[in-house]
């Protein structure tokens, strides 16, 4: 049982990373003048879309949480709507936090918001998929030794390392690069994410 879980976990993480890589290459087939550096806004949208889609698909396929006994349609719809509201709220609250951290209020607001969106897709979306809109479960997972399964453990670690990556991504801001800071942060952050995920995934396997 456990080995099986670990194997599935590994595959999901690999798929997730693969989707990030795909989001770099696939759009260049359809869109003209696409590159990460110049049209970073589009790339961010596409990337977050890819990751969300992969997460949802994985959730539907793998179904690590076998608690969905009540299968009435209205219940599912309210659950889905609730998830959407939570996602939006998390985006906005991240946006607020970034502004408090010093992102400009008006100019570059779109970039900042997209950064918030992508950070939410890396943190909130897996949480929503795995735990559902159930705050008590969230609290349990993110408090000390409240983790019950390996899935939750991996969730905790990936979320935390995403935050650390985003936090560390601010380091190059004072350097003399004449670039908008969000861009730097995002690139840095995504590299961190892609570095952290396999590391942590392997860490959980052991």
């Amino acid at each position, binding site marked *: 049982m456990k080995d099986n879980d670990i194997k599935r976990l590994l595959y999901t993480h690999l798929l997730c990373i693969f989707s990030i890589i795909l989001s770099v290459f696939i759009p260049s087939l359809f869109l003209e003048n696409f590159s990460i550096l110049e049209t970073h806004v589009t790339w961010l949208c596409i990337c977050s879309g890819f990751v969300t889609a992969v997460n949802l698909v994985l959730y539907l396929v793998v179904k690590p949480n076998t608690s969905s006994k009540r299968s009435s349609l209205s219940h599912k719809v309210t659950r889905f709507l609730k998830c959407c509201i939570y996602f939006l709220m998390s985006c906005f*609250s991240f946006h607020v*936090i970034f502004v408090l951290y*010093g992102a400009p209020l008006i100019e570059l607001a779109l970039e900042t918001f997209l950064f918030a969106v992508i950070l939410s897709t890396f943190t*909130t979306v897996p949480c929503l998929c795995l735990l559902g809109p159930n*705050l008590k479960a969230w*609290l349990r997972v993110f408090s*000390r030794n409240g983790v019950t399964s390996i899935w939750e453990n991996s969730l905790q670690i990936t979320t935390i390392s995403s*935050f650390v990556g985003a936090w560390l991504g601010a380091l190059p*801001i004072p350097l003399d690069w004449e670039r908008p800071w969000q861009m730097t942060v995002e690139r840095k952050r995504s590299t961190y994410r892609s570095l952290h995920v396999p590391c942590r995934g392997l860490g959980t396997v052991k």
Partner: protein
Amino acid sequence: MPYTTYLVEKGASHSFVAEAKPPTVTMPRIKALMTGSLPGFVDVIRNLNSPALLEDSVIRQAKAAGKRIVFYGDETWVKLFPKHFVEYDGTTSFFVSDYTEVDNNVTRHLDKVLKRGDWDILILHYLGLDHIGHISGPNSPLIGQKLSEMDSVLMKIHTSLQSKERETPLPNLLVLCGDHGMSETGSHGASSTEEVNTPLILISSAFERKPGDIRHPKHVQQTDVAATLAIALGLPIPKDSVGSLLFPVVEGRPMREQLRFLHLNTVQLSKLLQENVPSYEKDPGFEQFKMSERLHGNWIRLYLEEKHSEVLFNLGSKVLRQYLDALKTLSLSLSAQVAQYDIYSMMVGTVVVLEVLTLLLLSVPQALRRKAELEVPLSSPGFSLLFYLVILVLSAVHVIVCTSAESSCYFCGLSWLAAGGVMVLASALLCVTVSVLTNVLVGGNTPRKNPVHPSSRWSELDLLILLGTAGHVLSLGASSFVEEEHQTWYFLVNTLCLALSQETYRNYFLGDDGEPPCGLRVEQGHDGATAAWQDGPGCDVLERDKGHGSPSTSEVLRGREKWMVLASPWLILACCRLLRSLNQTGVQWAHRPDLGHWLTSSDHKAELSVLAALSLLIVFVLVQRGCSPVSKAALALGLLGVYCYRAAIGSVRFPWRPDSKDISKGIIEARFVYVFVLGILFTGTKDLLKSQVIAADFKLKTVGLWEIYSGLVLLAALLFRPHNLPVLAFSLLIQTLMTKFIWKPLRHDAAEITVMHYWFGQAFFYFQGNSNNIATVDISAGFVGLDTYVEIPAVLLTAFGTYAGPVLWASHLVHFLSSETRSGSALSHACFCYALICSIPVSTYIVLVTSLRYHLFIWSVFSPKLLYEGMHLLITAAVCVFFTAMDQTRLTQS
């Protein structure tokens, strides 16, 4: 500037781009222009109070030659060259906000003095342009007006000189130059291209050119001006000049004179080289000089024999080239000579600093114990032997180094007593360090056996504090991180707030299992995550007892107070964000528009007045609660006085007198406030002394400390510029919030509270608009309430005005810790932590700077930061002395 442009492009002139060496501040630049030497960074400190220049300069040579010199303009010249001018009118440059009066002061003499013509040299130093830059930056509409005014002045002088030239045999020379440039923000002091490049235009009828002769401006050094001027005036070149003659100036002269001038210059430079370099004979410049001198001799012989003019010309131009090469090499090797470092003295200083730091670090476990005792073992015979040995070795090294020193060395220049004192100190510190180290190693086994109390496990906050300090220290090694240090501090403070909010949430939600309130759900969920990343993978395995927030606290705090506790980190974050947009600082983003500039522009005076009044009101409300009634009244009157002072100097206005024209220096108002500041400080000290005598009266001491604190707040309110008053108000607000809702309910220990105070102090240093650049020091604080420049009060006031943030937070720390009676040794813990946390960056920075001394940005980035760090260290030392004094009173009480 149409006339000047005409002269540069078509007229009888030579134009250059003169490169000024940093620091680009007025006084060192004037020195460079007149002496031709390279003034060091110490001159920045002397910039405020320029002592008379003792070195050789063009002015001194001209005076010795009996030339009559007239000067109008910046007072710095008069201070640098006292008694050198037959007539002068100095304009003081400290009213930076004034840009018309300073120039009219110069121009009003112009007609008279041009007509009179009884002078040989006339120096005019216009200040207006610099002042406009300081006020509103290089893109101000005022700049255009000022430049056309300057153009008309130049035209007036030039036409008058031209009309006069018919009567005199020799041509006149008009030199137009700038002492320094202006950065993107309109300031100066650092070494950006805009600050370093200055115009230099020499205008004279001797430089007539044929039509179609286009002269491109060449890049030259600012130090070349002195040599050129001396040669043009027929004076000896100043002794310490490293500049070389601007050759295009003499190109029109006959070959013999050209060679003669070049010879003079090279002889002077090679003499200077002989003085400074022991192995000057091997210097390539010197060899070239000898060679060209020989060739010159040959040429003279040929010239006297009057051979064919063609041979003569060819040989002459060869000699000329040779001379120019020699000049260039000599100048270069001399400039490199100046950048030599006094390694020995630097080493001695670094060693002493490192020893102190090691001692502090080694005594961490000892000092942070319950008892907070720091005993220093000194009396074992082995160590005294070591001590004497080290002294002997050090003095031997000293003698050897000093007798064999090639260049001048500061430490060798000290008297024997002082040097001996330093050596005794160094060796004593070494011995103490060694003995503490052995103590730790020997005694290390005993405490390790009884395991550390589980509640002393590190929380996320401690980890953040450690990581933050380490990260900040490491970031000091990179020039761009030093330039943008404020970003580091803002970032750390923000993260600290988030970590604190996570801690509050955990205490209130996980401590009791009540349903989490709805409004904060999402934020709460995220913050749990946001701050949970502080702990590494190993930390979350172990059980951690929730020692900080015992259930009893959360039961006591219900309802509104609980909400305040939960919201206060977010309030603090919002405050920090507002303050951050008040003053843009640093280098890269300093030119961005910010609220401070918006407020100081003259269109928004009403808003500024309202804001200043509001902030003063907040200050009063927040400060008065701890004061005795008398000082409450004094505080109110004092804050009123601050507003009156700002109204008197015209930066804010009263609602009932909307446009008052009478702008004074506001001396009476400022002195009125000083009286209250001194009064409050005096009452505070009196209370403290009284509390020492009457041992039981604990409350009196707290009141006394608070009064000292409020006196400092009042002084800061007086010294801060009006647009910075919100910084003060917000700082008090944050202190109140933190005290009430975070430190008291969460029961942090003294060390954590100290580090948080230190971080906030540093952040407020930058919120005030300071940076690691000399140009941002607000020197106007030194002149509040003073008629003229008086050195000691001006320096003290400027230092306090600059470091008001850290000082206020430190004094708040003293008051807070002594008002909290839970732990007896909190104050001494805090003192130790404060000293440690301040000394780690400084000592690391000293080592870094020593190793990076050949870095490209050493003068522009690292040296100013070193000055700031040194000043900060002094302030910290003062704070620690205050801490110890408070601690002493506690000890005598118990």
